[in-house]
């Protein structure tokens, strides 16, 4: 994000290594999530699948999208979208889960 000044070209190999490592991690997580989907864990299937997806997204954001080296402000902006989505889901769900509570 803040690399406006060009860096020396020589650093090339070391600095792209991380991308390949992250890529490998993403593939492993993918294999893991597909594997887990064959096992019946009840409600945990959902939790695990979404947790793995979140982990993958986090890796992409942190490393591919350079969030790791970004300003606090960028963090805030990136987080805002997800926090607000959380509000949407949580408050809507609050209606659905509690509808049956009072014997309609």
């Amino acid at each position, binding site marked *: 994000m803040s690399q406006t000044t060009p860096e020396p070209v020589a650093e*090339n190999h070391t600095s*792209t290594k991380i991308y390949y490592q992250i*890529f490998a991690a993403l*593939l492993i997580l993918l294999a893991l999530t*597909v594997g887990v*989907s064959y096992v019946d864990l009840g409600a945990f299937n959902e939790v695990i699948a979404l947790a793995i*997806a979140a982990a993958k997204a986090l890796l992409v954001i942190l490393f591919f999208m350079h969030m790791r080296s970004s300003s606090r402000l*960028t963090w805030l*902006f*990136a987080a805002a979208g997800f926090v607000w989505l959380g509000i949407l889901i949580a408050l809507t769900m609050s209606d659905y889960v509690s509808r049956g509570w009072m014997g309609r």
Partner: protein
Amino acid sequence: MAELHSIMATPVAHHFEDAEQQHEANTLGMWTFLATEVLFFGALFAAFYIYRASYASTFKETSRHLYMSIGAVNTVVLLTSSLTVALAVHAGEHRQRRRMVRFMLATLVLGLLFLGFKGVEYFLDYREHLVPAFNFAWEGDNPGQAQLFFIFYFIMTLVHGLHMIIGIGVIIYLAVRARRGHYDQDPTAIELFGLYWHFVDIVWIFLFPTLYLLKQ
């Protein structure tokens, strides 16, 4: 995206003080746009999960009718394209024009590959009478709920696919200009495209388990 144009002009636009201000404004602008996109897709996810909570059994059944293998392969394709975009951005930052263009072309190919697989999958879905409003037929229980699943499946993947198509259009444009050396001085445009493309990838990272995997 409309702003890419002004970014491409290497000299600092008249209203900016210096290149750094311009660069920061551009990246922050892209992040803001992505926050919007999160909620754009988010509305779909929210609606989907609410129906999924109510019709869990039907949705699990319907999920089994999707081609998980194609979905998984496509995930690999998209993750790889994310890697190539990241490498293209990296090359751009290091002022390596040829390398950058090569990785952009790789991304382009991978993007097209994704759409190709998706097309095949849609065709298979069509053959199995899973396309609501066109030929939907459901043997099992609760055809209404099953159809609901497929409506969401198609809307979500189509909106995602539309983002892919836009991305592919942009990368073709960028690649042509990059070859001519337009971004040798200031690769911000490539960087912004990278952010966009990674985001589209992230959407798929969530779509894949949401649609294909929650079948137990």
